[in-house]
């Protein structure tokens, strides 16, 4: 059996039954492979969960970039396009999202769910690229020291949006769309040149005068 087919088979099982297969043996057997063969590809079901999330993220980035308007987008719009595409994908896989996120939320609600580790690492790279691009276009203000923390802000935003989606009960998850719109606008207002920079500049000016 091709390892590429194990993932969809596992996802299918998870969505149908609402839980992972009881044992790796049972799952492998149903796929017509031995348990040993399964471990050659994945160490556990949790690893597949993580890879599935990472796949969603990659698909979202690729699909969003195919949109003809993408080339004309600034960093803010690219991030929005990514989120909306991701939410489209997640809508078709909501059962999986609820299962995996819900599970880790119960166990350790304040921590980053481990199932997202690969997904979030990819997002971090993507975001770093966007922020770099934003700095060259002037959408993002250059602030030595402080700007190192931007990645964390956007990571929290990603988590906020995922949790909002998980809890959203509006038809077609329209409230999540609105939440994305507002959250991204706010975050780019924060990292863009704003009152803070002018205040800093002013403060620096005053200090220089005195010396």
């Amino acid at each position, binding site marked *: 059996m091709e390892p590429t087919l194990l993932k969809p088979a596992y996802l299918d099982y998870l969505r149908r039954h609402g839980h992972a297969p009881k044992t790796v043996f049972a799952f492998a057997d149903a796929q017509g492979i031995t348990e040993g063969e399964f471990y050659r590809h994945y160490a556990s079901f949790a690893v597949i969960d993580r890879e599935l999330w990472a796949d969603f993220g990659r698909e979202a980035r690729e699909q969003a970039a195919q*949109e*003809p308007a993408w080339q*004309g987008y600034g960093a803010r719009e690219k991030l929005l396009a990514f989120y*909306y595409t991701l939410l*489209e994908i997640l809508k078709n896989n909501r059962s999986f999202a609820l299962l995996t996120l819900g599970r880790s939320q119960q166990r350790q609600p304040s921590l980053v769910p481990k199932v997202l580790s690969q997904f979030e690492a990819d997002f971090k790279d993507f975001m770093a690229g966007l922020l770099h691009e934003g700095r060259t276009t002037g959408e993002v203000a250059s602030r030595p020291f402080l700007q190192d923390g931007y990645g964390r802000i956007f990571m929290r935003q990603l988590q906020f949006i995922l949790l909002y989606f998980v809890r959203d009960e509006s038809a*077609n998850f*329209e409230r999540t769309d*609105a939440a994305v719109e507002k959250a991204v606008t706010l975050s780019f207002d924060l990292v863009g040149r704003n009152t803070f920079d002018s205040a800093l500049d002013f403060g620096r000016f005053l200090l220089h005068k005195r010396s």
Partner: protein
Amino acid sequence: MSDQPQESLPTSKVARAARFAKTGFKVGANYVQHYAKRAVGADSPTADLHQANAAELYGTLSEMKGSVLKVAQMLAMEKNLLPPAYAEQFRQAQYQTPPLSGPLVVKAFRDAFGHSPSEIFDEFEPQARQAASIGQVHFARKLGKELAVKVQYPGVGASIQSDIAMVKPVALRIMGLREETLRPYLAEVEARLLEETDYKLELRRGQAVAAKCGHLPHLQFPTYYPALSAARILTMDWLPGQHLQEFQATNPSQAVRNQLGQALWDFYQYQLRELRQLHADPHPGNFLFSTTNGGTVGVLDFGCVKDVPPLEQQQFLSLLDPATLANPDQLASLLTEAGVLRPTDAPALREMYLRTLTQSLELVGRPFREDTFDFGDPAYLKSLYALGDDLLQDQELRQQREPRGSAHFVYLNRTYVGLFSLLTELGAVVRTQYTA
């Protein structure tokens, strides 16, 4: 305030409620200042106070787009319900709401058609040309045709009820209205708002009204394209013309303005008398004015259409009939029929109602009683608003705890006050007699 882009948008219901609470406090502070100034003998007229409160309230409302804004607009239309200073602030809301981002517009299209706008149209401008109250309008081109594509904000329908529930106590307290005054109004507003979020309904209505009113002179209706429309997307022809204020800035001639006013007047007369169905949202944003053929009005936005039941239509028309006003007995029996007067009313109360209503009818029905009416005289609209203010201030009337008459009259009233105010801004002289 009005030309600044809106930045932070409060997301959750709690955050929005918090903003309302904040306004409540600020308005409270304005009152304190008002009375403090009075106490030390400074001149602080009530008009100033209203102005300050209105600015606060508007500042808050403008940060919350969607249905709150819409409610504000509708209240603004009903100037009779609001002190003028509030109404003026709310009217500003008509042209500004924060735009949807490009990706969200793309997503709305993918949701509806499975394709992005650039695949559906030959040309699609990602920047919105105009804001509509619950969405925005994009310019597009397909097969050489210029199109207007209206895209709705996500989640508007879901938030209407909670928004109205939030607006209500604030409106009651800040505007000094009684709950009974506001309740039927808000109920109607809510029903219309929910209808307005349904673009499919709007499309059907737009097509129907255009088919029925297409023969009226100097009016222009857009063609709607069902294949390019969905629940949250509406595609129609891009009509030429400008909004009222911009159009007025070009100094159109009196003849043009008269023709435009006449077209509007005939349109509403025809709807009320023949169709028993009203385009019930005559605020300036819904009409486009141009000098084509000596003055043409483009009619947009059929989101708010009011069906008028035959009985109410007859009552309303009889009330406007000059013969009714001249004959107090006939007026009294008509008002009893409409449920405004009740047989159980004490004579003094009955007398009071009759007196106020005769006064209102004389004023509201005035254009209907003359052959031509000059709306260019601002004194008329002013006295109309003044009457509304007087009624609000009238102690006897305020003590009546229950509203009278049909809730349908609320919309008829709003429609005609809206129409009158449009005609006044146009400064049009209109032949008001109806000829079938």
